[in-house]
């Protein structure tokens, strides 16, 4: 099995990279050094070739990153290793032993553990119960030996530097702790090789640092860690090796200390990308939206937004930074007319819109890029053209002389938009929105939103789940809106994004704005601390 996939494609700007990167090469003679060897793995879903002869070798006792855009195939590859998918072709060796892994049970038996992006924990059971689930310590008559269980779990956690309170109930603990529980669960089942699927997506900066410390600790005690991610910073901070996958093929495997973030990004996307958005200083104008003492309850009746006040001006991007679940969702729903508020006011262009309907929000001049583009942003079964007029279908320009919709005019308009916003595939006006990739779907939403020339653009996690290229595109679009004198309110859980484009940062914690900061005069650490409830 020759490792021909190692050669870099011509268009790669890092094509002249040193051969020395290829450290964990496919030399099968030293098999004993590798925890995981996967050769020639292929997998198709329908007509889609998800993996095409992928080779991956992971050295024992290292942290190995798998980098790739969404849909590049990195998760698929790991799901094959964990037995969730069956491969169409290829060979797997674990600790040098060839093996067939048909289901997760066999994977666990081979010492492989996986922590999924979405945790699989029983919410109303304790941490210890969750960890031992399936192999509980039993006293006579099948009674659960709680004493022993809690003691074992406490000691077990300490051994790996993953201290947890075994008695705490899952739904009461933070997301970061839940992740620790997932890691412990895998270790408890005897995992020597730990796969982490996008583990940092749900964490604050401090928690990410802690996770990286934990990963190093695991490696010290002899474990092997594979981390799936598309965040470059974390790879640089944590991993020893990195395998880059693009469109189902391995681009390269590199030693991380030999490359820069930019190199990794270019290899991942296949062209040179700007990791930071270029923009001029903001020139803020009058206040467009003002929120005063707003209080909003969630479905369970808990106050998620408490006496929150903020304002957004023309020509600036205000970013609300915060950890998921601190009231952002309820705040957005209150502004967009999906949720009633308890008290307070939302004034846009002089109109009160609190406790209104979505149509009131629209009339006041707000348009929203919703965080959930499949649920709220698009009608997936509608054609792209129909989605492009989803909010402007009432306009005269889409009607014929008989006041009926003119599909010719609509499709002409759609094709112009598709060209202008570079939505791919070109000329996709008649294709259903669900046939587009995530990035292009988001472009449809951006195109639609921007075309309506809103006074205030509310962008909620506009780049979530997008790859570097699409992120670059969306962020530039937001800055362009700002430059045209519109107000932009960005709600993001990612500090990188906040610092990249914000002109002003409001930190939200526990339903309140706890700080109003100038990004030039603060840093990620300070904001991260505020997001976690610390003081300035």
């Amino acid at each position, binding site marked *: 099995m020759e490792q021909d996939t190692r050669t870099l494609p011509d268009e790669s700007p890092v094509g002249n990279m040193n051969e020395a990167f290829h450290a964990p090469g496919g030399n099968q003679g030293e098999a004993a050094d590798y925890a995981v060897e996967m050769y020639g793995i292929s997998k*198709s879903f*329908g*007509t889609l070739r998800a993996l095409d002869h992928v080779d991956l070798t992971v050295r024992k006792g290292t942290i190995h990153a798998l980098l790739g855009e969404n849909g590049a195939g990195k998760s698929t590859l790991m799901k094959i290793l964990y037995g969730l998918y069956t491969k169409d072709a290829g060979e797997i060796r674990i600790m040098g032993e060839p093996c067939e892994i048909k289901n997760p049970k066999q994977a666990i038996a081979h010492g492989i553990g996986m922590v999924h992006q979405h945790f699989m924990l029983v919410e109303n059971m304790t941490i210890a119960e969750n960890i031992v689930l399936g192999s509980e310590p039993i006293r006579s008559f099948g009674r659960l030996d709680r004493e022993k269980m809690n003691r074992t779990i406490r000691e077990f956690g300490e051994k790996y530097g993953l201290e947890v309170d075994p008695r705490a109930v899952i739904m009461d603990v933070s997301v970061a702790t839940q992740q620790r529980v997932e890691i412990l669960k895998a270790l408890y089942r005897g995992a020597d090789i730990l796969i982490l699927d996008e583990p940092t997506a749900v964490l604050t900066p401090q928690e990410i640092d802690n996770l990286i410390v934990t990963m190093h600790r695991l490696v010290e005690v002899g474990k092997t860690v594979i981390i799936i991610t598309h965040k470059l910073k974390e790879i640089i901070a944590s991993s020893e090796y990195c395998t880059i996958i693009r469109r189902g093929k391995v681009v390269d495997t590199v030693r991380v200390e030999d490359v820069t973030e930019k190199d990794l990004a270019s290899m991942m996307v296949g062209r040179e990308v700007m990791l930071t958005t270029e923009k001029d200083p903001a020139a803020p104008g009058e206040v467009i939206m003002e929120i005063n003492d707003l209080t909003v309850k969630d479905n369970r009746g808990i106050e998620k937004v408490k006496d929150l006040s903020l304002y957004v001006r023309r020509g600036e991007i205000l970013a609300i930074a915060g950890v998921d679940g601190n009231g952002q969702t309820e705040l957005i729903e209150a502004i*967009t*007319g*999906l949720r009633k508020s308890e008290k307070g006011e939302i004034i846009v262009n002089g109109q009160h819109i609190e406790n209104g*309907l*979505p*149509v009131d*929000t*629209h009339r006041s001049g707000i348009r*929203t890029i*919703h965080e959930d583009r499949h*649920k*709220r*942003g*698009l*009608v*997936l*079964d*509608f054609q792209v053209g*129909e989605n492009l007029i*989803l*909010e402007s*279908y*009432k306009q005269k320009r889409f009607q014929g002389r008989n006041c*009926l*919709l003119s*599909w010719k005019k609509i499709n002409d308009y759609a094709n112009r938009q598709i060209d202008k916003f570079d939505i791919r595939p070109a000329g996709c006006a008649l294709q259903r929105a669900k046939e587009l990739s995530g990035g292009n779907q988001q472009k449809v939403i951006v195109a639609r939103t921007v075309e309506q020339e809103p006074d205030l653009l509310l962008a909620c996690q506009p780049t979530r789940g997008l790859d570097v290229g699409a992120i670059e595109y969306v962020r530039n679009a937001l800055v362009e809106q700002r430059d045209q004198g519109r107000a932009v309110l960005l709600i993001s859980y990612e500090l990188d994004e906040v610092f990249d484009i914000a002109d002003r940062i409001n930190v939200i914690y526990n339903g309140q704005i706890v700080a109003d900061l100038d990004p030039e005069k603060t840093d990620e650490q300070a904001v991260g601390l505020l997001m976690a409830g610390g003081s300035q």
Partner: protein
Amino acid sequence: MRKFVIQALKRPFTAVFCAILVGLLVGAVTLLLGGFDPGRGYSLLITGITSSTRRMAQVLVNAVPIVMTGLAVSFAVRTGMFNIGADGQFIMGQITGAILGYYVPMPAIIHPIFIMLCAFVIGGLYAGFAAYLKNRFGIHEVISSIMLNWIAYYFMNFIVNMKSVKVPGTQHSPEIFDTAKITFFSREFRTTAEGEALIAKHPWMESLVRTDAGYAILVMIAVTLLLWIILKYTRLGFELRAVGYNYYAAEFAAMPVKRNALLSMFISGGTAALGGAMLVMSTSYFITMLGATEGYGWDGISVALIAGNHPIGCIFAALLYSALKLGGTEIQSRLGAPTEIINIMIGALVLSIAFAPALPRLAERLERKE
């Protein structure tokens, strides 16, 4: 050849065609198991439909009510509401037709128009009530409209059973006035010398004179086109389809989703009720005490399914449906096989329609192998 097959598999019509074949095949097997000759059965079925223009006209006449309920179901489904209550709305239309046709004397021409408008409104409100319950209390329209079906059914029996309504010595309401009837020719005309003469002169006229063919057919075609235009070419239709595919996105795009749910059910229910009223005005002329509903609304669900919820498709689906039913009576009378065989056949056909989404996938598979 292979390319042709792949392209064909991708077309929705192929699925319907295959389903019809499966239905016929199942029917053949059933006939065989029952000890009948399937070949003879099917030739009887076909001659039963095509032997005379009168019979073909009858297929069309019988199709009208189920086109209407089929339209009602498809329109609602396209807009995200599963109107399983078309049967109840149809019955409300029948009641309206029978009552207004007898108790509210009016001049000809105006009388049927008045009845049709009233039936549409009453059926619309009846279905709209289910939508109101959904908007206001979150009660699913399937549950409420099933219950409304029963209410309509017993309400009809109640009305017919009232002393002031029931014709003594019968189980039905009084016959509606001639002014309310909408057939092209009256039933009496069939046996008059004048009628005989007309048929003798133009044999094809038999299909109009000797059946209940009437203006209902024209109304049906008009309603079909109207619903199709609403869905495809109006802003309301755009909203309704958006809600149908994704309620949340439509709501977020500031569309009036609750008003639209109401409107969609109103139009759907009105269409079904219009079908009921037209049945009374062109065929039954009164309403009868029934031991079970006639099931026009349920047939409408099958029709909508075969039609892929396309308004114009409903006409063809209903024609197929009523042709099989009419041909089935021929199998019964001439071959002695029970009409249930036809019902099994239709059941198999509708069931195979459910497999329609598998065909494009099969096409993809073949493509990949290439």
